[in-house]
């Protein structure tokens, strides 16, 4: 028996949970991805070269950059809308979503939340328009999950600050006009707004990645980088600063990961319908259907969770533990879906002709950055037991 197939969206009736504005914005992002990302993404991934500056400009024109922030040329939209935009971007590629996360939720958010009026005026309108690119330097070669151990130092010299140290795995590093760099001072960790043309600043690109290849990743080297007193982010001290920004970006990933998973599952379903094995379509075998059904459940549940967390964030009540719940579940399920979809596409699944292995490989990074799965397990574990198991 053949019936009219339903879409994944219909299966969970997700559309009814989304408001008109949110749908319009998501549609605009989907259109952008169809026009500007999909036709080129395999090549960008293959060559490891992405026209980041051009894309940033176009994303700025669309209105995506810092879209959930208010004022300074930002669109001032809700967190849920931002999430839905991330979902569409990551359905294209996690690397493109990363560019947007780092620009909007890490670099712009830090300046918006912790910056001086002067810093905001100088950077935010240009960053929202896509005329300036930002990066966010927290991780170091020896300190990832435990950024509190960082070795990058900022020392007072008269009125100036002098920064020394190395940051590692910094998205947008080589193309950035401005870096938000976190450094240890004699007292607490402070954030610095560093124009990347400051003498002593360099950003060698990290090559030979097998994941997030359509995204620029760099090392930041700071050698006696001298900054005026006005370069420090005045409104925050301690790790609370970078962790607050990370929580913002993590939120986008909760939606984003489901975008990558959705793209894989849609690809796998249509592939299975077309592919003939042993004289009938791959989609008509029970084993295939069991896989598809299980994946659809995880996708739908993950999307429901994302929307729920979006509403919580918009109501101002979301907690960091809840963000961890979303990040852990949705990245973990997304990579499982991507890998399972790869089995349905079999040999075709390992090529860049289809998006599946690209998403699966990208999701390895997404699983790791913004807090590894293990770190989020520890956050949730602590929330449940009250016992801290980090050290």
């Amino acid at each position, binding site marked *: 028996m053949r019936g009219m197939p339903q879409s994944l969206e219909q299966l969970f009736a997700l559309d009814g949970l989304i408001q008109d504005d949110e749908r319009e914005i998501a549609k605009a992002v989907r*259109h952008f991805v169809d*026009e500007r990302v999909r036709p080129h993404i395999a090549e960008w991934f293959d060559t490891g070269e992405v026209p980041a500056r051009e894309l940033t400009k176009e994303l700025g024109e*669309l209105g995506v950059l810092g*879209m959930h922030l208010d004022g300074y040329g930002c669109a001032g939209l809700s967190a849920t809308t931002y999430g839905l935009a991330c979902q569409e971007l990551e359905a294209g590629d996690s690397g493109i979503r990363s560019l947007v996360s780092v620009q909007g939720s890490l670099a712009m958010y830090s300046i918006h939340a912790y910056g001086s009026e002067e810093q905001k005026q100088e950077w935010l309108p240009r960053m929202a328009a896509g005329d300036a690119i930002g990066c966010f330097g927290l991780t170091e070669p020896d300190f990832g999950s435990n950024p509190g151990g960082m070795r990058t130092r900022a020392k007072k010299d008269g009125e100036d600050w002098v920064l020394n140290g190395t940051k590692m795995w910094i998205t947008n590093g080589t193309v950035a006009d401005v870096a938000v760099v976190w450094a240890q001072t004699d007292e607490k960790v402070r954030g610095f707004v560093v124009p990347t043309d400051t003498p002593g600043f360099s950003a060698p690109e990290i090559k030979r990645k097998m994941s997030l290849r359509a995204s620029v990743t760099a090392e930041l080297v700071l050698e006696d980088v001298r900054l005026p007193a006005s370069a420090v982010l005045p409104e925050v001290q301690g790790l609370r600063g970078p962790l607050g920004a990370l929580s913002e970006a993590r939120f986008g990933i909760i939606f984003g990961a489901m975008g990558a998973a959705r793209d894989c599952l849609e690809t796998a379903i249509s592939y299975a319908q077309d592919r003939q094995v042993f004289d009938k379509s791959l989609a008509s075998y029970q084993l295939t259907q069991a896989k598809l059904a299980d994946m659809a459940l995880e996708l739908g549940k993950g999307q429901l969770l994302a929307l729920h967390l979006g509403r919580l964030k918009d109501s101002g009540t979301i907690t960091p533990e809840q963000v961890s719940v979303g990040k852990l579940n949705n990245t973990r399920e997304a990579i499982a879906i991507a890998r399972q979809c790869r089995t349905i596409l079999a040999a075709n699944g390992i090529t860049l002709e289809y998006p599946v292995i690209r998403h699966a490989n990208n999701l390895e990074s997404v699983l790791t950055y913004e807090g590894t799965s293990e770190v989020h397990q520890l956050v949730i574990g602590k929330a449940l037991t009250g016992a801290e198991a980090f050290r």
Partner: protein
Amino acid sequence: MNIVVCVKYVPDAQGDRTFNEDNTTDRANVDGLLSELDEYAVEAALKIVEAGEGEVTVVTVGPEQAADALKKALQMGADKAVHVSDEAIHGSDAVATSLVLAEAVKKIGSPDLVLTGLSSTDGTMSVVPAMLAERLGLPQVTQVSTLEVADGTVKGRRDGDAVSESLEASLPALVSVTDQINEPRYPSFKGIMAAKKKPVETWSLADLGVDAGQVGLDAAWTKVESFAQRPPREQGEIVTDEGDGGTKLAEFLAAQKFV
């Protein structure tokens, strides 16, 4: 410079085309959108106004859902919209559509320029622009791939198979544009949010002083008697070359009147 752009709401060509019991196109129960060819007219209007000053008003004649076409045009940047909607319009032909549009354009005010697409993507007759120009008593510059407005005139180039014509008319005028004229913008978030606050007026035939008897299915000059799905394509003829392949090919082409 005040510009009115006529935009049509058409069934999404990706979906299945369905018909009503009275043999009219089902426009109400299918996914529809702003006719893609009309996006070029909207873009052309926006470019002119952005380079100078004035206002872009978009107008559609169509069912309730046609508001979607207006919304898209407003998101792109049009300033206001007029929706002519009336049960009696159902089944109207091009003659009636142009009558309703003409009255709507008059009520909007006397624009300097009326812009339309090359043709709708569903009816595809390309006659509404000419009919509308006649009714409004405006010079018509149709099917142009360039458009220049200066010193009270409008100039455009109409590209034919063999020749390109340069056309010029005094303003006010009606111009229909092709898909070669520009690259229509896609709405930005700002455009999407701003569109929600832009004025949309809905007018009935009575508002326009049009008698219901002049429009609709019964007033149409032509009537659709019946319709049928196009039969699936037949498999092509395969000629095995036994030395006479060339001759057979030539015979086939001659039979199809290609040579």
